[in-house]
Each structure stands twice: as structure tokens, then as C-alpha cells.
């Protein structure tokens, strides 16, 4: 540990009590100590970053502060007053707001309805949706968070839903905002806007507990940093003197490689080809507008683009989850246009979906059942339609081990896993078995630096074995470091295809924003 790491000083030394003080919190779940004697203080106007590996106990800690879970031992003080939250309602009344790692929105309700849920503005006995709508627009404008109050939440992209969550927390007028990985789902541009919001909030005296795995962000906004490992605080510091490497090492307990080494790609036969592909999103808007893309065996083709330029629909159309309105998809020597997801999967196409909780897992299922979600009917796992539970569990145990999923057992419900560990389950499922084409969307969303390194290695390993990889990611660093070629998706088409070796963040950023690399074209549609 570096010399500047020290335990949080006892808060009693201060004159005025800190805004929030967490004292020796302990929380155990069957078989795991999620938090052990955790201490944390938050001062007014401060951004306090919580760092730690997947499963280190960050969400558990803030859930206790927000009243969603009750500590086994320890105390929480707000402005020196001991508090005992029985539920999140208590925490909200005490001026705490939270944006959760997993969305808490109701898809069939509109944005405005979601935001006022539990905070209804009434006129007489009627819900005054108009007042709410006006307030939302005002808030949205003030913090630069554009949301359409009348849109149905289920129709929104992940990034847009995240904005709704933020507005919702702000709407309730919180002094302390807890943000559990709010930037995991945002694009780089959105992240910048988001930090502008965060900074203006703190300048107005609000205080923020901020959880993220992105060390670049930590160094950019944090005032103080607390690092958790296996439920315990292993260090607490200010940003001064900290580097990405020093933070990563402290989190993981070993050296972490940020940019995975890879050899020159050795592209083979054409593995994926779309021609004139067109597809519509859920609202009926054409978002893939005549797209041609080619990926060869043994190469990683990265798709960069601002969210909403057709990434989601492209991936879903290739994997059979969405039908193309025109154009064709050829994969592994077959015309797979119009095939069912199962048939495409059987051909050797694996798919890591963008939206884990919607498509990737069944929250109520065990880890084992999630690990065989799309191959429960393989010979190995069932005989004449009857499940072979022993084989399923054996497979699950081996994958959990291989992908270092932190859990007490494969029979535990997947919802008991930390967010990052849930993602590892999806990745483990998709990267195993017979595959020749891998379609991945946001493969490392929500993962800690160590796990990202691991999954990047896995993907490169697959490429070297001759698997074709189509990688969609909002992380420019991930696109640049993993890809062999990069296509920039702009308004449903590839605006440019460049060699990853020549790509810079700046050039990609410009292409993503304007669809063209010459700045003179910038203002043209």
C-alpha cells in the first residue's frame, strides 16, 4: 500500500459532524460477509468515490445507507444524528436519493409517471401530471438531462433510461445522492455531460457517493476515494497522487494490464456479411438504413457510434431477434436472414446482449439455470426432453470456476450476485461451446478492471482460434484496444471503416458525432 493510504480518521475529531457518517457497518448474507466494519464519511459538497472489485460490497453498503437493507451491526449518522432506516421511504425523507445499478423503472409507464411514482403531486384527488411534467422539464433543462416526459420508458434506450433515473432522484430534492455505477451505461459524450451535472450539483452544496469501475472518471471528479475489497475498507485517500494504476492495484491486489497485448490479426474467410440491411426499432423508426458490414474469421471488428445510431437493431437483426425490413445477412456460409434465434445459435453464432437484465438473464433463476439458458435442450443437459440436473450443475460449477464468478454456489439465485458477477455469468455462457461468430454488445459493462482484462484476453483468444468477432461498445478505449478494424456507425450506416492501429479517440469521436472526419462537414446533416 502506498504511503498516502490511511484509514479514515475518526469523525469525532471534527467540529461540525460530517453530513453522513457510516460507523462499523457489517452485513452478512448466507455464506458471504458483504460488508465488514465499514467506515465512511461524506462531507457537504463532496464527491466520494467508492471503488472495488465486482462483489466487493459497494452496492450492499449504499443499499444500507439508502434503507434498502438493514445492517447486522454498526450505525449510520446524518449530520451527527443516528438514523435507522426501515425502508427507502425513510431514507428519501431524510434527504437521500439513489440511482440504482439496476433500473427500477416501470416499462409500461411514461417517463413522467415513473418520476412521480411515490411522490405524487395531487390536485384534489387527481394526479397532477401536468405540473409534474413541467417540473421535470425544468429540472431536465437545468441539469442538461434531456428526457421526454411523455415517452414510454420501455421504448427508451439504456442511456435514456439512466437519465430518467437521474431526474427521478433529483426530483425528490435529495441532499445526498448515491449513484451506483451511473456511467456504466452512458456514452463518452453523455458521461461528460453527466459530470457537468454532477459538478454543478456539488457546487450547490449537494453531496455525492459515486460508485464506478472507470478509474479515469474517478480521477476526474472525485474529492475522496474509498476502496473496498472483499467487504472491507482497504484504503481511503484523496485523488491527489493517485493514478489509475495505483487505484487498480489497490482494488484487485495485483498488477492490472489496461491494454491487452495482441498479435496481428490473421483474417480468414468471410464469416459475417450484411448487405443493404434495414431494420426498425421498437417505435417503428428505421434505425438501420442500408448497412453493409463484413467481418472475417479471426478478426475483431469494432463498431463505434453514439448510442441510438442503430447498434442495438443491427445486433438483434443479425442474431435473429428482430426481422430485417430489407437486405440480407449471411453468416458462416449461410443466408441467415429471417432465421430464428435458435437456428442462428445452432449454426455457431453466440451473442452477448447489451441489456443484461432484459435479455441476458432470468433474475429469478439460479446461476446454473442461467448458464444453460439457451442450451438446456442440448444432449448433454437433457435426455428425451427430461432435464439432467446433475449435468447442468456440473457444467455450471465448472464455468463459475473458470470465469471466477464470485458466488457461494451455482444453486444461488442469480439476483444474489453483484452486477459484475451477473455479467460474468452471461459472458461465461456465451463464450463456451461451439462458436465461430461472436456478436458482443457492451461485454464489459459494469465489470471491474481485473475482470475486463480477463474478458478481453478471452475474446482475443477466441479470435486467435479463428472466431469472427463483431464488437459493439460505447467504450472507445475498449473499441480501440480490442478491435482489428473499426466501423463507425452513423445514422444506421457505416460512415467509415478504419484500421484500429491508426485510430485515435479524437478522430473516432469526430466521426461518431458528424459521420465524417473532415471538420468542414461538421454542420451538414
Amino acid at each position, binding site marked *: 500500500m502506498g504511503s498516502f493510504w490511511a484509514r479514515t480518521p475518526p469523525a469525532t475529531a471534527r467540529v461540525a459532524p460530517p453530513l453522513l457518517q457510516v460507523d462499523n457497518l457489517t452485513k452478512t448474507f448466507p455464506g458471504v460477509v458483504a460488508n465488514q466494519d465499514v467506515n465512511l464519511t461524506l462531507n457537504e459538497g463532496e464527491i466520494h468515490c467508492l471503488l472495488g472489485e465486482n462483489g466487493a460490497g459497494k452496492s450492499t453498503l449504499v443499499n444500507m445507507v439508502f434503507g434498502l437493507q438493514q445492517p447486522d451491526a454498526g450505525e449510520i449518522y446524518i449530520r451527527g444524528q443516528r438514523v435507522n432506516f426501515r425502508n427507502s421511504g425513510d431514507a428519501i425523507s431524510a434527504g437521500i436519493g439513489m440511482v440504482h445499478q439496476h433500473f427500477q423503472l416501470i416499462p409500461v409507464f411514461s417517463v413522467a409517471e415513473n418520476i412521480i411514482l411515490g411522490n405524487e403531486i395531487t390536485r384534489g384527488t387527481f394526479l397532477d401530471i401536468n405540473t409534474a411534467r413541467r417540473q421535470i422539464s425544468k429540472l431536465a433543462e437545468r441539469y442538461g438531462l434531456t428526457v421526454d416526459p411523455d415517452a414510454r420508458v420501455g421504448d427508451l434506450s439504456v442511456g435514456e433510461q439512466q437519465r430518467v433515473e437521474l431526474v427521478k432522484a433529483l426530483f425528490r430534492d435529495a441532499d445526498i445522492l448515491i449513484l451506483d455505477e451511473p456511467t456504466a451505461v452512458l456514452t463518452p459524450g453523455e458521461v461528460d455531460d453527466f459530470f457537468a451535472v454532477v459538478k454543478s450539483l456539488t457546487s450547490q452544496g449537494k453531496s455525492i457517493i459515486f460508485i464506478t469501475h472507470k478509474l479515469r472518471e474517478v480521477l476526474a471528479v472525485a474529492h475522496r476515494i474509498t476502496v473496498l475489497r472483499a467487504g472491507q475498507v482497504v484504503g481511503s485517500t484523496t485523488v491527489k497522487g493517485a493514478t489509475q494504476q495505483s487505484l487498480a492495484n489497490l482494488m484487485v491486489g495485483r498488477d492490472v494490464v489496461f491494454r491487452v497485448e495482441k498479435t496481428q490479426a490473421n483474417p480468414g474467410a468471410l464469416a459475417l456479411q450484411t448487405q443493404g440491411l434495414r431494420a426498425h426499432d421498437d417505435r417503428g423508426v428505421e434505425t438501420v438504413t442500408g448497412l453493409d458490414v463484413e467481418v472475417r474469421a479471426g478478426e475483431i471488428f469494432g463498431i463505434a457510434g453514439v448510442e441510438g445510431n442503430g447498434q442495438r437493431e443491427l445486433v438483434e437483426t443479425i442474431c435473429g431477434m428482430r426481422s430485417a425490413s430489407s437486405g440480407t445477412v449471411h453468416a458462416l456460409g449461410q443466408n441467415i436472414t429471417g432465421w430464428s*434465434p*435458435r437456428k442462428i445459435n445452432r449454426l455457431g453464432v453466440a451473442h452477448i446482449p447489451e441489456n443484461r437484465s432484459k435479455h441476458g438473464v432470468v433474475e429469478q433463476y439460479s446461476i446454473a439455470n442461467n448458464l444453460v439458458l439457451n442450451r438446456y435442450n442440448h444432449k448433454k443437459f437433457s435426455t428425451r426432453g427430461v*432435464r439432467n440436473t446433475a449435468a447442468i450443475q456440473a457444467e455450471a460449477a465448472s464455468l463459475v470456476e473458470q470465469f471466477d464468478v464470485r458466488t457461494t454456489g451455482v444453486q*444461488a439465485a442469480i439476483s444474489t450476485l453483484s452486477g459484475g458477477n451477473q455479467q460474468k455469468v452471461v459472458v461465461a455462457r456465451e463464450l463456451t461451446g461451439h462458436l465461430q461468430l461472436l456478436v458482443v454488445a457492451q461485454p464489459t459493462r459494469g465489470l471491474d478492471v481485473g475482470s475486463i482484462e480477463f474478458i478481453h484476453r478471452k475474446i482475443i483468444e477466441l479470435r486467435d482460434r479463428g472466431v469472427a468477432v463483431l464488437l459493439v461498445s460505447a467504450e472507445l478505449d475498449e473499441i480501440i484496444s480490442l478491435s482489428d478494424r473499426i466501423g463507425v456507425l452513423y445514422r444506421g450506416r457505416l460512415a467509415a471503416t478504419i484500421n484500429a492501429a491508426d485510430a485515435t479517440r479524437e478522430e473516432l469521436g469526430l466521426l461518431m458525432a458528424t459521420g465524417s472526419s473532415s471538420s468542414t462537414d461538421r454542420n451538414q446533416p
Partner: protein
Amino acid sequence: MASGSSITRASGQLHRALTEIWRLQPLYVSLYAILLSFIIGGVLISLIGVNPLTAYWALLRGMAGDADRLAGSLARSVPFIGSALALAFAFRAGLFNIGAEGQLLAGGITAAYVGALSWMTNLPGILAIPAILLAGTLGGTIWGGIPGVLRTKTGAHEVISTIMLNSVVLFAARWMVGSRNPVVLRDTDSTVPRTKPISDNAVLPELVDSQPTLHVGLLALVGMCFVVAFVLNRTNFGFEIATVGLNPHAAHYAGINVNRVLVWAMAASGAFAGLAAASEISGTSGHFQPGTFFLMGFDGIAIALLARTKPVAIIAAAVLWGSMLAGAPLMQQEANMSIDVVRIIQALVLLFVAADAIVRYLFRVKDIEQNPFQTSTVGGAI
């Protein structure tokens, strides 16, 4: 206030006994709902001026006072098993099939029609009985499958379409059975509207000559519960159904044909109601009358919820339900209590099971998982 908390403390202790001694986890809420309903029912009875113990004692003897009454109670319960299975099965796929009422009628008509066909008289029982049961099952399957198809093709919600189909088949059945001009299915020799009696070969063998007759249909439907438990908990089809029910998006992603699962779940669901109707006609009445199945489908909903949609628990819940109805007349006779008291108690049971927060609060029961694939309790095929 103080007495209130001592009551919940006492019931909390009862709860611990049930947890640690009898291990009936998934069914606490139901057991407590029954207990609570009988207590409230008892209060009602005493308000009328009757000793609730006398009334309940009569009810109990009416339900199972001697072998004959017990057999009669069981006989009364048989069709409820089928109509409850109809709800439970669809429920796993996330569908709310409240059309068992109509599916019973559809199955009843087809069974009675096939059972009365002239060529049936030439078939040996070993063929005639399966024929009539199959006919009823098929009728129920089709009537259950239609809302499934409507749901997947047009998005029509199954709650709405099953309610409408209930009415359609009810009026169609009344007309077919009632009309003399033209004669459709009416037995013209009978003064009451009903179908022609089924052939003797198609009558299910009886187990006990009780009132009503306890017939082999009991075994068929009890067996069906175990089959359903196996299918839901141990097979790929069961896994597909549960996946669709819990997260249709993930099911689609995983390559499951969501629409096909929905249609089959509805069709299978109707099949159970159809089988129940056929076994009633073949084993008990010998002909079809629309009134026979009145409210049986809706009682099935209550029974399925009481059994927490667990197929094997449905057997117990249906037997309780059916025997309460069978035992009520003795209570009326001996304690001079209207049969409706039983209906009130049943309504309370349904209320407490549906609004289980009340029961959970009173008995301090934590929420528990329902689905067999959810956690480690796989195979807990209660």
C-alpha cells in the same frame, strides 16, 4: 394494541412450528388463510346465534363423517382438480386463464356428443372410455387454445378473451342442448334440457357407490397432477414455460419460441378442464347439462391460488373445496346454518390468499420464491 401484538406473537410461534417441524414452507400463507377464514366464519356463525363448534362439527361430519360421505366428498372434488390445473398450468407461462368455466363446457359438450354416438355402443369399454375422455380433452384444448392464438396473433389479452369465450360457449351450449327446433344435441325424450345419455360402455368404472358416485376419474385427475408436476419441474418444456412466464424477452433471446409456448400452455390448460368435464359426464351424470359446471371454473381459480399453483397441492386444495361443498347440507340440517356460510368461508379463503400481505403480516411470514427453477429448491414438486 398490546393484545394485538400478543396475538401476532402467538401466531408467529405457530409459524415457527410449521417451519421447523412440518417443513411446509411454500404453503404457509394458504394454511393460515384457511385458519383465519374459519375463525372469522366462526365469529359470523356465533353472531347469528349458533354455536360455531356445533356447526363446524356438523360440517366436518358432512365432509368425512363416514366412508360413504368421504367418498362422496372426493367425488365432488374431482372436477375441481381439473379446473384448478387449468389455471395453474397457464399461470406458469405468465398467463391468467380464467376461462376454465368455458373450457369445461366445451369439453363437456364434445364428450357428451361423442359418448352418445351410435357406434360407441359397439366399442368395448377399453376403447369407449378413452374415446370419451379424449373427446372432452380435445374440446377443452381447442377452447383453451383459441385465446392463446388470439394472444399471439392479435395481442388480445387472455383475460378478456377467455371471459368472452366463456359466454360464447355458455350460450351456444344452452341453445344446442335446449333447442327442439332444430334439434341439435337435445335429448327429445327428456323434459329438462340435456343431451342424450352416453353409451353404457363409455361410463367410467365406479370406485365407491357413494352419493355422488366416486369413479375412476379421481385417479385420472390425481395422476394428471403428478404428470403436470413432473412436466413443469423436470422437463425442457417446463423450463421453457417458466422462462416465458418469468422473462419473455430473455426467452426470445435464448431461442425459445415464445408464441408457440404461449399457445401450447393455453391449449394444455384447456385440456385439463376438458378432461375434468369428460370424467364428470362419463363417471357421474351420463349426459351433459350446462348447469353441471356452473362456477366450477371460477372455483378452480380459487383452488389453484390456494395451492399456490403447485400441481400436487392442488389435490389437497380441491378435496378441501369439494368436501366443504359436499358437507354443507349436513351443517344446514343439524345446525340450521345456511349452506352459504361455506361459500362465505371459501370467499374469505380466496381473499386472504389473494391479498396475502394480510396473512404475511399477521403470521410474520416472509415472502418465498414460487418458481421451481428459481433457486435451490428445484424438484420441490409440492
